[in-house]
């Protein structure tokens, strides 16, 4: 069957199970857009900015478990995809970006809206393609999806010159991608798994560090089985949140810079770390030389380059988290560790994660109330900053894949297009977006798209009229010299939402939190809540960048605090 390049793209997307693409048209990509009406099964969501198309595809992917797709034209549209591609790359999110390019003959001549898209995106994609022959398109599309979703997932970009989209060639879609140089290791080595089981049996004070890999591989059940069978308490990294039930007796919390003090002390005292699908990010370890000083380390990851990259590993196991944990569960012995668990309970009692209460309205209290209202089962999308850490600390997730956040790259503004993407993946559910007034203003153009589709997104703005995390850093580590943090020109977010036809309400006192959340939850369509929180509130604990547990700053005693 002969098809144009544009038809091939649509046909391939359908064969890969794609239902929604997020994009914005332009000159070079136009042949694709003019072909879309022939493929009514492909739903195109017209966004207001290409960056948001990228984040929406990323969040759609995280929420649906499918490959998210975004489309942009050449030049400035392609460069607008840089941030979402880097975000997806850092967080191992499978995503396909399709970009238009100037016609082949114009490449390299600085044509209108020409940019070296594959060159620019080389270090922020798992792989990328510039297709110079329409006949290559079926193979490239098949390979791109295969690479994006297998192994350690990641974004793949396909750059398509306009005339490649227009030309016709034979379309014969391959059943399988054949890439001899790409064969991810899935099964863990049996001797290494046995070694790991022996180490767990030997350990007196073991901990599991669960990362994003547990969620990506769908290993929550295997993780729980291991934790319960061997009685190993579980710590979740920022991206691993939700991989283990937040109400489980063996659940401890998040480690690192803004992790619970309990977790950091536990790691300090542990004699064994079982790290699964995580990468010992600097926000987790702090100062490497004083991180887990007494612990042997088992590191399970599908990406061999992560093993030994940041932390010395005693038992490295390359493989898919679910398969390795499954194998490990068959080897590991049943155990009980009453002393270790009692020690941790004492630590928990000595270092509670408090929520300020009383007259001040704080982000912690809003998140805790949201968690209570939604029973720990909502889809929560955040931006980056104080609100993100409060959400990570105080929303107890009971189910996997409900927590969507930009962890590695730390992309402010992710919450608006992210919540939009998640809402397309979960049309029957409410999606809660938690952001600050800073990040929200970076991507709020997508309110129009959210309003247009009447998505059930509830935007929570924890508004302190400033860049709160930067202010906190200045207060704690720069002699309280506050520079460039005040947002004195903020709009009235309620009126702004209403301008888009979005229901909105302002909340200024703690007493109004629950009622406002309930009111927002009952709105049919989008809603926005502008919480005027105490601008002096900090995120605690705070381990200074590159610092050790000994340098951890814990929360001051709050008045009327509850834990």
């Amino acid at each position, binding site marked *: 069957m002969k098809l144009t390049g544009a038809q091939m793209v649509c046909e391939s997307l359908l064969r890969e199970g794609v239902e929604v693409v997020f994009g914005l048209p332009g000159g070079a990509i136009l042949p694709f857009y003019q072909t879309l009406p022939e493929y009514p099964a492909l739903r195109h969501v017209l966004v207001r900015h290409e960056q948001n198309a990228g984040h929406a595809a990323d969040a759609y992917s995280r929420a649906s478990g499918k490959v998210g797709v975004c489309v942009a034209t050449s030049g400035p549209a392609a460069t607008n995809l840089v941030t979402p591609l880097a975000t997806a790359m850092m967080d191992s999110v499978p995503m396909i970006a399709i970009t238009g390019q100037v016609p082949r003959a114009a490449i390299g001549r600085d044509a209108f809206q020409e940019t070296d898209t*594959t*060159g620019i995106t*080389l*270090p922020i994609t*798992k*792989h990328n393609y*510039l297709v110079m022959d329409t006949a290559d398109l079926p193979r490239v599309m098949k390979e791109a999806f295969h*690479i994006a979703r297998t192994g350690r997932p990641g974004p793949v970009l396909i750059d398509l010159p306009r005339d490649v989209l227009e030309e016709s060639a034979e379309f014969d879609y391959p059943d399988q991608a054949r*890439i*001899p*140089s*790409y*064969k*991810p*290791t899935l*099964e*863990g*080595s*049996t001797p*290494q798994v046995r070694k790991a089981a022996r180490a767990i049996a030997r350990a007196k004070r073991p901990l599991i560090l669960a990362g994003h890999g547990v969620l990506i591989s769908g290993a929550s059940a295997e993780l729980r089985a291991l934790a319960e069978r061997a009685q190993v308490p579980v710590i979740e990294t920022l991206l691993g949140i939700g991989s283990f039930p937040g109400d489980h007796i063996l659940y401890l919390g998040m480690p690192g810079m803004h992790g619970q003090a309990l977790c950091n002390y536990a790691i300090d005292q542990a004699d064994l770390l079982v790290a699964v699908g995580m990468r010992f990010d600097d926000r987790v370890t702090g100062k*490497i*030389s004083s991180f887990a000083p007494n612990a042997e380390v088992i590191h399970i990851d599908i*990406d*061999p*380059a992560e*093993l*030994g*990259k*940041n*932390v*010395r*590993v*005693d038992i*490295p*196991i*390359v*493989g898919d988290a679910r398969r390795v944990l499954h194998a490990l569960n068959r080897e590991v012995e049943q155990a009980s560790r009453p002393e270790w668990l009692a020690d941790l309970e004492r630590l928990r009692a000595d270092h509670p994660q408090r929520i300020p209460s009383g007259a001040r309205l704080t982000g912690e209290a809003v998140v805790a109330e949201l968690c209570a209202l939604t029973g720990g089962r909502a889809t929560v999308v955040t931006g980056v900053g104080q609100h993100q850490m409060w959400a990570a600390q105080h929303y107890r997730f009971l189910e996997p894949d409900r927590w969507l956040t930009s962890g590695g790259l730390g992309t402010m503004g992710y919450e608006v297009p992210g919540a939009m993407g998640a809402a397309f993946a979960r049309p029957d559910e409410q999606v809660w977006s938690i952001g600050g007034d800073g990040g929200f203003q970076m991507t709020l153009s997508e309110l129009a798209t959210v309003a247009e589709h009447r998505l059930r997104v509830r935007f929570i703005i924890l508004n302190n009229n400033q860049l709160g995390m930067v202010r906190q850093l200045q207060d704690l580590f720069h002699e309280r010299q506050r520079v460039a943090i005040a947002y004195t020109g903020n709009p009235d977010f309620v009126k702004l939402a209403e301008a888009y036809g979005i229901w909105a309400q302002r909340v200024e006192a703690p007493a109004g939190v629950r009622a406002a959340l309930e009111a927002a939850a009952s709105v049919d369509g989008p809603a926005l809540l502008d919480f005027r929180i105490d601008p002096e509130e900090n995120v605690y604990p705070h381990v200074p960048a590159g610092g050790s547990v000994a340098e951890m700053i814990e929360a001051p005693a709050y008045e009327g605090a509850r834990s």
Partner: protein
Amino acid sequence: MSVVQTHTISALVNDLPGVLARVAGLFSRRGFNISNLSVGHSETAGLSRMTFVVEGDEWVVEQVTKQLYKLIDVVRVSDISHEQIVVRELALLKVKATASTRAEVVQIADLFRASVVDVADETLIIETTGDEEKVDALVKLLSPFGIREVMRTGRVAMSRGSAATGSRASRIGSTEASAPDTEVVP
């Protein structure tokens, strides 16, 4: 303590546009130092062989190897530093040689079994093949006469014996079950 050394790494890569940029980009992004890089066709159509000289300790070499494997177009990587290998480099040297010095320059070239491949009024082009030390020594000896231009290909290396170069490759991330134990902290 980590010891900084040089390692010779041989990689088999897909012969496609942009592969060199991917490899070079990886080195610069991850902060690896390569003092030497050569690329050419391999014995298999569609595959090129790259030879790098990497400076760094064991941790660096392990990371270079693993990160290279993550590139989709990289087929095989091997650190052949500790193998029995033949190392060669080709150099062309344009040396100032007048009627009075020409005989002496040619004599030095002969000592190195280098050949004169071009003769002009005031210069000679000398071609030599050998390991880096030999080329360095020749350059040093010819310097007093005045070297106008130096072109060196960089190191290529091949395993001795009948086994293919890099056949004992650290096939991390492909079919082998697990990465080697690592003992190095950055």
